[in-house]
């Protein structure tokens, strides 16, 4: 596909997205509902040395290109399962030392650091153009970054992460499966190591029909779905020299002939998600987008066991016994196993034998959604002494708000002994409902602009 056709295609996508957004907005105004119907979660697992904001930007870019509604008209939600890469401090220190070379011309210009992580950008090019002696400094910095990325990925391939180390990810997957959500995982770079663990876990709890994986620049020889890999991806090629990685799928132009990604960065390393793989001017873009769209259209929903809500609370524990979830709603209504229906919410899963889950959801219906603080508590009803209980609160608007663990003492029957969360629902300045964890705050945060 030539550049003109890609740009035309981009424009059509934009029109499609804008049109959908307008129609969704009109629908929202007619509904007394604080949430939107969603059938599929498209979840991004970020690459090496990506900031959390960068991971969210990548997910927002996917939303821009794929849209908020599937081709069959079902709502899509975009989420991020963030994995951080250790060692950035070392690279900052390398930057500090190298920037003192050649007359200290780059000294203290740390705004170039994040650009360097992406293999350089407009500011870098401007400085090198004006001061050629900066070339070797930046060259050395980018070489250090590439070496660090290969080292990190090599280490992860040798000792892959397990989902046990990423409990919030695991519990979010549990929640989404129980709510009957279809799951599409999109992984870039080191995210592929994490997505494989997430895939195995998901399949163990449901079936391969309920989850699809799209691999981008896979750092792992193990693949659980379609993949895209550029031939000039220097980071993965560095990994290839040390072990097995999949074959290349796409040829991309050399750096000097390559158009920048939409963030204005070309990435000398050929590895960036936005710079290379979601760059509308490269063939990798069409492949990645088509893989995601294909995954969305073929994934099948698991049977729903619980309802979604404006916010939800899920309790699990690590053995037999009966642990109970208690929620005190803002008006004082106490929701627990004996009174499952509250004014706002409902306890729609109650487990009495072991492991859980117990699940409470607050309604999206604004006629019953109370503003104020919801107190989330636990009780060891019976025979769960010493068990570790895990509670995750998720919000429709934000995903997982927080996850906490509690080691249970002696049983207290129906008397909750552990206050785990205080969750506040209020309206913001734009009159939209918002929710936040105020467990460690002094009183309400509602008067503070969100």
């Amino acid at each position, binding site marked *: 596909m030539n550049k003109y056709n890609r740009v035309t295609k*981009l424009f059509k996508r*934009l029109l499609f997205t804008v049109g959908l957004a307008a129609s969704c907005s009109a629908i929202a105004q007619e509904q007394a509902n604080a949430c939107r119907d969603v059938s599929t979660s498209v979840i991004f697992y970020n690459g090496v040395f990506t900031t959390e904001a960068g991971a969210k930007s990548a997910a927002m870019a996917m939303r821009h290109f794929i849209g908020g509604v599937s081709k069959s008209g079902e709502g899509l939600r975009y*989420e991020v399962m963030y*994995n951080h890469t250790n060692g950035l401090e070392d690279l*900052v220190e390398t930057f500090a030392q190298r920037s003192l070379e050649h007359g200290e011309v780059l000294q203290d210009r740390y705004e170039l650091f994040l*650009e360097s992580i992406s293999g350089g950008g407009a500011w870098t090019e*401007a400085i090198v153009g004006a001061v050629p002696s900066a070339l070797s400094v930046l060259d050395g910095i980018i070489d250090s970054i590439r070496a660090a990325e290969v080292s990190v990925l090599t280490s992860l391939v040798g000792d892959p992460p397990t989902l046990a180390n990423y409990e919030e990810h695991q519990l979010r997957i549990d929640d989404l499966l129980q709510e009957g959500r279809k799951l599409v995982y999109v992984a870039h770079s080191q995210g592929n190591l994490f997505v494989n663990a997430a895939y195995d876990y998901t399949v163990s709890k449901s079936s391969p029909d309920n989850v699809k994986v799209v691999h981008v620049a896979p750092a792992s020889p193990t693949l659980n779905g379609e993949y895209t890999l550029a031939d000039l991806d220097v980071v993965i090629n560095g990994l290839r020299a040390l072990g097995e990685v999949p074959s290349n799928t796409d040829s991309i132009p050399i750096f000097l002939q390559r158009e920048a990604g939409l*963030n204005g960065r070309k990435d000398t390393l050929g590895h960036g998600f936005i710079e290379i793989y979601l760059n509308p001017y490269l063939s990798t873009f069409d492949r990645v987008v088509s893989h995601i769209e294909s995954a969305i259209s073929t994934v099948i929903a698991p049977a729903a066991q619980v309802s979604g809500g404006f916010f939800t609370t899920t309790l699990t524990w690590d053995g037999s016994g009966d642990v109970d979830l208690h929620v005190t709603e803002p008006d004082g209504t106490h929701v627990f196993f004996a009174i499952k229906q509250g004014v706002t919410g409902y306890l729609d899963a109650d487990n009495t034998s072991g492991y859980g889950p117990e699940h409470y959801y607050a309604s999206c219906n604004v006629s019953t959604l109370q503003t104020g603080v919801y107190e989330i508590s636990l009780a060891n009803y019976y025979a769960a002494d010493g068990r570790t209980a895990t509670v995750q609160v998720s919000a429709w608007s934000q995903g997982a708000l927080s996850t906490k663990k509690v080691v249970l003492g002696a049983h207290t029957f129906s008397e909750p002994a552990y206050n785990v969360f205080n969750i506040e629902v209020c309206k913001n300045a734009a009159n*939209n409902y918002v929710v936040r964890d105020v467990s460690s705050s002094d009183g309400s945060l509602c008067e503070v602009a969100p």
Partner: protein
Amino acid sequence: MNKIIFAGIIAVAFTGCGGGGGGGDSQNQSPLTDAEKISDLENTGVIPKLDRSASLIGPDVNVNGIRDDIEEYIDAKYASDEERSAARQSAKSFQGALSVDTTNNAEVKAASNKIANALNCIFTKFNWESADNNPLRVSAELEAISFNTKDRLNKYEQYNKALDGSSSSIPDGDTCE
């Protein structure tokens, strides 16, 4: 390999310069030092002119939560009130990451949520068809200039580390303040 790439960048940059900046009596002027050349780039807005003080938060004379130099950058760079407002929200949210207690999970999550809302605002207000000011470029640049000293970068690294293993949804709808 990078040397070849950057050699190309230099060639392109010089080709694009076209001899600009020189006056009729340039032969009598002493050549600019490297520091002066970079200062020129700052003064002409090619690269940002930023506060590099030891303070994490930096100067904020009007106490609106946005570093003064970043506010100047935003006012100079973005055309519409809507774009400037979205950029300010983003700059303010990034500033929030510099003052967060990274041992307090709820506080870190709240800061992350504010950044997400601000990014979402940028993604709805800036023009995707713009080469210079599309949402991805604007958000990446605001992030880079917000964490432009060693201390600011290292604090941001602590913030990101505190979010390791977190899960979050991308906001829907209008999240502009």
